[in-house]
């Protein structure tokens, strides 16, 4: 029976300690940030950027995330829970354009400004649903895809011929769609000899991308390049390609996350279109502060991108490299 009293005593002590610390922290405005998942280093870098932005803006960041890129209802539940905290703003990286709409509508009613982090909300869908988004911030995903195509053509030449594989993101996710579309359009324009033989969803998952790569190599052993809509998939794909002995196969990712940087330095991944999530996170918080102070903020804010290759990383001259975390 003594266990019960010590348990009760320790709970009381813990509660007292936390209550006092909570009381002290209540003075700064709190911005709510709802991410997808923290497992991808892309989002980890964005979290760092958000934290840094919060520090320089003098606000507190309440950050929540869910298990995986596919945890739809849990993200809706986390969003509803965040509303309970009545934060000054809601910065959300939605798993897809539709999942959070009921919660965001409520945020509108509570006069909490909603920010679309990393262009996950299709403006057509939000407008149709009557949800007001204060601003969308992220990288231009179409331009990022196009930069990937641009890089490929710069390596292989405009007259290059050969099959190319595109591995898309999670089906129906607008970020993935735009990147794949941007790549395909630019490739057609610059090097019509390079034809896309397959465009399959990899669900942002490295193992899925590895399997797709293997299966495609079975059918098309003379594949010249693979474009993946994010780095996690590109890393899975490149490992599969190198394991199959295809060292000349060019693999391009998007995100510029820390694992991709390591892989590029090690000479495995060829390139990644860095989306500077750190900068996106930092600027999101900065712009929310401006918005809440009454200043005008652009409806769509595009954060620049940078193509990372071994040469670019080693030369270390580009000022944007400081934002690659």
């Amino acid at each position, binding site marked *: 029976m003594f266990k019960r009293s010590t348990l009760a005593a320790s*709970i009381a002590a*813990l*509660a007292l300690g*936390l*209550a006092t610390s*909570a009381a002290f922290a209540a003075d700064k405005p709190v911005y709510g940030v709802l991410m997808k*998942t*923290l497992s991808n280093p892309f989002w980890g870098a964005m979290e760092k950027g958000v934290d840094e932005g919060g520090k320089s803006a003098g606000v507190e960041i*309440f*950050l*929540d*995330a*869910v*298990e995986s890129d*596919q*945890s*739809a*209802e*849990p993200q*809706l*539940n*986390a969003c*509803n*829970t*965040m509303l*309970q*905290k*009545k934060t000054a703003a809601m910065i959300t990286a939605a798993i*897809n*354009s*539709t*999942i959070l*709409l*009921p919660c965001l509508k409520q945020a509108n009613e509570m006069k909490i400004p909603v920010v679309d982090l990393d262009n996950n909300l299709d403006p057509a*869908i939000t407008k149709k*649903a009557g949800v007001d988004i204060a601003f969308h911030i992220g990288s231009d995903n179409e331009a990022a895809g196009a930069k990937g195509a641009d890089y490929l053509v710069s390596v292989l030449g405009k007259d290059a011929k050969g099959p190319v594989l595109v591995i898309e993101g999670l*089906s*129906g996710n607008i970020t993935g769609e735009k990147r794949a579309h941007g790549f395909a359009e630019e490739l057609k324009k610059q090097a019509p000899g390079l034809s896309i033989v397959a465009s399959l*969803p990899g669900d942002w998952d490295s193992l899925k991308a590895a399997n797709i790569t293997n299966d495609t190599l079975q059918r098309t052993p003379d594949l010249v390049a693979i474009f993946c809509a994010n780095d996690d998939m590109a890393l899975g794909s490149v490992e599969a390609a190198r394991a199959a002995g295809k060292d000349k196969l060019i693999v391009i990712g998007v995100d510029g996350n820390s694992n991709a940087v390591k892989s590029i330095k090690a000479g495995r991944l060829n390139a990644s279109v860095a989306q500077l999530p750190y900068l996106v996170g930092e600027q999101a918080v900065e712009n929310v502060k401006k918005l809440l102070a009454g200043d005008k903020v652009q409806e769509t804010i595009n954060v620049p991108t940078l193509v990372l290759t071994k040469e670019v990383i080693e030369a270390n001259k580009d000022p944007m490299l400081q934002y690659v975390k």
Partner: protein
Amino acid sequence: MTSASTGAAPPSWRARFASGAAVRLESLIVLAVLCIVMAMLSNAFLSVSNILNILLSTSVFGTLAIGMTFVISSAGIDLSVGSILALSGVVGAILTSNLELPWWIGVLGCLATGSLTGALNGFLVTKAAIPPFIVTLGMLGIARGFALVLSNGISIYGLPPEIVWLGQGRPFGVPTPVIVLLLAALVAHVLLAHTRFGVYAQVIGDNEGAARAMGVGVERMKVLIYTLSGLLSGLAGLLFAARVNSGEPTAGLSYELTAITATILGGTNLFGGRGSVLGTLIGALIMGVLQNGLNLMAVRPFYQQIAIGAVLILAVWLDRINSKEGWRR
């Protein structure tokens, strides 16, 4: 709980299993302690809107867990409930959004999809005599696959306002899914504790041979039990789709594990026998409170996984050291 008689005729089956309707005390204690701890750790926890929020977040997997109670009571298992949820939601969305049929056809479509898939499970378990674990494990993949095929992998957005109300309405300030959950729980409780169907289900789980000897139609009961589980999965699928206003083929991933955990937390014996719908509701609430409380404190989702697993083991261990019957089999 039920004392061994002193040599007189053993208590009737009905009496023995009706006592299972009583809630397991340990689950209530765990829920109460959790609520107290969460309330102390976050001042946003104990507001009316947050409590409604918790109930709302529990409604979908809670509905699944109610169906799971029947299945586990009968010493079976249904691993396909999450996939049936997704398939039902997708079918309902296709009927109403793509084919633009009236809302009630969408509702019937969801329930019918769930029931038919559940019946198929029951049929395979009884006629083909394949263990439920394997049948429902296979159905987990098949139903999920069908959901992805029918929807082409993308969510089908935009359901009729009647269905959206089912997920997002607030009659008298209470979210509609909560009302649906409580109604379903009420009906299920009466079914499990006070009808022959419910008593037989538990008898089958306790001792299938004896049930057969008693004259219980075991095969027919099993088909009905899995159909019921499928029906409730279809209902959960409808609620999910209504909540997010779209048919999502990736809905309900791993929800079967959540439903099983809620059922066990509630006191239903994993190996079959005594079952309690009220207990399952409490089990579901324990998980909902945990998730909500941890979200309010911005605890990383990975820790939430650890917490839920730990609470499950703790709750069952508490039951073990307190109960006299211990584990059978």
